[in-house]
């Protein structure tokens, strides 16, 4: 079984060490310059990449250490898209500046590639990038220009494709489309979702995955998404535990990710119990096609708890592989 991270990660240390928070405060007070800020971003990103390597993750992100929120690099890379008032991000006490569309979307690029490249070059663990999927983007943004859904969708898919392709030639190994919106939406036009994703996934030079989290309807997407060319489908098994049963019963055509570590609660999961839940899934899907991961980015946790959760992923794997002493002593 593989283990991976999903998206964001705390920008501050659990103890001493470089802190984006402190450096931005210093920068705002006129202390330190742009180079100091840049160095801090790289050091904090490096700290996560070192943790990923130390723990033995198979796939990581750069922790989105430079990002204000999930939309930040896209807003900077796309013309006529602006960051506006704060809105709550679903049911979290976290707030994002919602994107406002004030003209026809056009791709300029540069930010995401620059922000990602240094991390991808440095990382000893394969690196993926998590971007907001088109349905989450549309649900959380505001259109003040198009007033024509079809044209807007067409342009949005194109600029997201161009954003994805801006990463071609870097060492990024996967682009992950985050769709919490689809995980919670009760009424959704499934054929439209499939159609939009068929367009978005086309002509790609990078493998692409989708992450469905924070909602109870995760498992219901497995069938509609089955025929799309994903490299992996990541599923929140905390919000929707039904995914365990579905994945234990039916083999999927792609790698399946199981969000087994709750990225929104400090309580540390019991590795034995997680291993018991994962075993039937591993048997059905085969271990090399299953990825265990946190339900979402870990930035919603304090840094000490986030790190503990990353380490817990490795413990779960050890338990499953029988290399963990606690299980060996049980004679498993």
């Amino acid at each position, binding site marked *: 079984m593989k283990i991976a991270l999903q998206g964001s990660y705390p920008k501050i240390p659990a103890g001493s060490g470089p802190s984006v928070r402190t450096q931005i405060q210093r920068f*705002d007070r006129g202390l330190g310059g742009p180079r100091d800020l840049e160095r801090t971003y790289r050091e904090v990103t490096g700290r996560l990449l070192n943790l990923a390597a130390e723990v033995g993750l198979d796939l990581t992100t750069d922790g989105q250490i430079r990002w204000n929120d999930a939309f930040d690099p896209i807003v900077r890379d796309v013309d006529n898209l602006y960051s506006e008032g704060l809105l709550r991000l679903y049911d979290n006490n976290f707030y994002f500046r919602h994107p406002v569309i004030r003209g026809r979307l056009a791709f300029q690029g540069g930010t995401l590639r620059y922000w990602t490249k240094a991390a991808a070059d440095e990382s000893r663990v394969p690196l993926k990038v998590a971007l907001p999927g088109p349905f989450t983007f549309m649900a959380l943004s505001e259109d003040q220009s198009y007033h024509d859904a079809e044209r807007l969708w067409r342009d949005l898919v194109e600029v997201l494709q161009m954003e994805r392709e801006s990463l071609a030639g870097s060492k990024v190994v996967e682009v992950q489309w985050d769709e919490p919106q689809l995980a919670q939406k009760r009424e959704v036009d499934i054929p439209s979702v499939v159609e939009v994703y068929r367009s978005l996934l086309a002509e790609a030079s990078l493998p692409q995955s989708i992450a469905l989290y924070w909602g109870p309807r995760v498992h219901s997407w497995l069938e509609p998404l089955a025929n799309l060319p994903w490299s992996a489908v990541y599923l929140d098994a905390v919000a929707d535990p039904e995914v365990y049963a579905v994945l234990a019963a039916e083999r999927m055509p792609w790698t399946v990710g199981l969000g087994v570590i709750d990225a929104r609660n400090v309580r540390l999961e019991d590795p034995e119990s997680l291993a018991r839940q994962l075993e039937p899934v591993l048997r059905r899907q085969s271990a090399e096609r299953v990825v265990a991961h946190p339900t979402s980015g870990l*930035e919603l946790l304090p840094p000490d708890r986030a790190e503990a959760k990353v380490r817990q992923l490795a413990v779960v794997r050890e338990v499953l592989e029988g290399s963990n002493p606690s299980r060996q002593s049980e004679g498993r």
Partner: protein
Amino acid sequence: MQPVLRTTSVGSFPKPPQLIEARTRFRRGEWSRDQLAAAERQATEAVIRLQEDLGLDILVHGEMERGDMVAYFAENWQGFEQSLPVRSYGNRYYRKPIVVGKVGAARGLTVDAWKAAQALTDKPVKGMLTGPYTICDWSFNAFYPDRRALVRDLAAIVHEEAMALAAAGATYIQIDEPAISTRPEELDLAIEAMTVVTSGLDAHTISHICYGDFETIYPALLDLPVDQLDLEAANQGFQLLELIARSPWPAGKELALGVVDVHSHGLESVASVKQGIYKALETIPVDRLYIDPDCGLKTRTWDEAEAKLRLMMEAVHEVRQELAAR
């Protein structure tokens, strides 16, 4: 006679540099609790004087003794543990409490700060509490079997605190529930909890709510058992008023309308604030419309907070004059 369009502020004010320094020294063990308390009193007086100078009608004490609207209670009540900071947006962080045991509290945590502020002015000062639903939602629950059990225990504690404020003489008591729109399926729980909090409370009750998806809980939100709903509106270009206009505004309910965005450094124009007020007056009777900022001002600098309040008051004065001339 009471003025129309009574003005107020939501709760927190920016901490003046002297208080920030005092809090740092206290944390480092260089200053005693008494020295910190003196700095807090001095800052509270500055908050009261500023509001009086600007002519606000119902004042707040500015929460100089509080770091955060949830963490303050968690730090002083039983059953909570403090976490390392968690980011809430931009470069803002808070220490999200962890519930590790049954919650409990001695009554009257907020009373002394309220009394001290009220003693500085003849105008009413609001008693400020955070609601049980929000305290639950903005904490990690590592103890209770479910959120409902935690909210119910918190409601009993917040009720006691509200009763203590009323007994001390607070005539306006605000119980903030910014998290109320987070999970529409739990609105009944938030309403049940507020019913417990306000039960038998002899005061004008207010609940401040912000930065949520009001579409999902409106008009059911009107059932929240408080006299006044205090809602953020400027941040979203007063779009909230279109939602409010879809249903009749209930008799006996007041609206406090947020007219300046507290998370933007930029200063609004008087014209845009007036436009928001006039739009609200299309739905809300003038005697039941209050005016305030979108949210607490603590994320602004002192100068920015003062400028936003001054501009708000200028707009209100102009609207009052224009209404009187009709």
